């Protein structure tokens, strides 16, 4: 199983926890960590489940429920905010028919905000999964979304 495989790569010490969670969540196709998996990780590291849960809830990267197949994150750092002549979130909301923090009915997209992605010199910026899109314009956003809707 995937989790067993990943666990075996790490020493059974508490300081492996975040690395394990990151690698596992990334590798798992539904990109979230279930209760059963929390149990298994806790028992491998010999720490309490509460400890694992406190880490999962502290760090924004970790998810405990299934999100859309693609996660769209729009940067709302000040540099992106002041360079955007368009309201990026509004455009995406309109295109997909969802609001921020919602998932489309077909479970294809989840829309979220993110803090600065460190690409402020190419603002405005958004991220879809691991891919970054810079210097956004209204047409560019629509074209990118169209590509995901048709091909991915």
């Amino acid at each position, binding site marked *: 199983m995937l989790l067993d495989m990943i666990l075996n790569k790490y020493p059974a010490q508490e300081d492996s926890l975040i690395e394990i969670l990151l690698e596992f969540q990334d590798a798992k196709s539904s990109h979230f960590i279930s209760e059963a998996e929390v149990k298994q990780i806790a028992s491998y590291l010999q720490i309490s489940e509460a400890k694992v849960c406190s880490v999962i809830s*502290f760090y*924004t990267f970790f998810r405990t429920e299934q999100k859309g197949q693609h996660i769209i994150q729009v940067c709302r750092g*000040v540099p992106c*905010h002041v360079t955007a002549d368009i309201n990026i979130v509004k455009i995406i909301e309109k295109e997909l028919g969802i609001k921020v923090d919602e998932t489309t009915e077909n479970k294809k997209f989840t829309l979220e905000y993110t803090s600065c992605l*460190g690409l*402020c010199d*190419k603002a405005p910026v958004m991220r879809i999964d691991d891919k970054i899109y810079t210097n956004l314009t209204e047409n560019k956003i629509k074209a990118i979304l169209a590509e995901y809707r048709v091909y991915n």
Partner: protein
Amino acid sequence: MKEMKVISKRFDKVNPLSIQDYINTNGYTFLKKAIKMERISIIEEVEASYLRGRGGAGFPTHIKMMGLAKETSMPKYIICNADEGEPGNFKDRAILEKDPYAVIEGMTIVAYATGATKGYVYIRGEYLEALKIMKHCIQEATENNLLGNNILGEKFNFTLEVRSGAGSYVCGEEFALIESIEGKPGRTRIKPPFPTQKGVFNQPTMISNVETFANIPFIIEIGGKEYHKIGTPSSTGTKLLSLSGNIKNPGVYEVPFGVTIRAVIEELGGGTLNNRKIKMIQLGGSCGPIIPEYMLDMIIDYERFEEFESKTGSGAIIVMDDRSDIFDILMNTVLFFEHESCGKCVPCREGHVQLLKIIDKFVKRTASSKDLDSLESLARVMHQTSLCGLGQSSPTSIISTIRFFRDEYLDRIDHPASN
């Protein structure tokens, strides 16, 4: 004005992944030099250079090095803070992606000088490329006997490991970062003891910024005295600046300390887009002050920045032209900190919620002069009583705009929304 490329000299000139490229461009020459020096003289060179930390606060680096060197409890650790979560900062990403071996060499020299045997590079989880590059480079360095056991044939062991953040801004704070490396939620600890006394796994630890470490090989190259001649007496050397916002040529630029903000914006950044008027700039990122156009002749220097009582020294300059609205920016900034607060102390946890309520009144033009007083005193209390730098510096944008843009606050009070 031209850039002074010392830390950025290899940017876009070498293949950052190639250790051979690095070595061919003088890389590792200064580790080789340092390893033949007395450990204490390395620290003295850094002292003579008066290098100050590039993570924001500008603390003298040699004091931390000496602090670590004099500890006897083994093992001792070194951490490179590559969390760079402050909105508007991207200079550490540039170093990590374009000259990663310089950071590794700098850390190795510091490890040698202080007796540390293990190091971590803590990179924010959003920096996927930098994470990949750093892991690769550490492996290459290890295979070339530049990390690991008996480095360069000397009795000197030092290993490096990359750790990834997981989307928490407060983990850039040194003790929050240490907790995170230990696999815990990133909540700060009460100081003292300081990290050099009891840091990661309760062992002596020195934690410094990416750019700080990248300066070390250069100090060994030219010597502390020569280094001290660059910049200003209180702020020596060069600074990488992250220039963003309403500007023609945003990007990372390296300048000696002492140049004016205006020169950077106009001569390196090419001025604003469409030559619009600058309304304000934010210095350092979201935790920094918002200052008006007429202050752009201020020089870049830690001493000047200290006036704002905030961690302004990371080198972000966010330019905002005359279309920007102060209250819109404040709302954005405070929302960010409210979201990132770790919740450990009351002034920060509760303070942000209250700040948002009052700022919203200014946005909606329903604020009274009493609200302005409350805003100001709340911001002061948070600044003075919060447990860590997040709550202490988050109100800086408010305190600075009340000082420099008071008219705009009063205008909103005097001209309420009509309904």
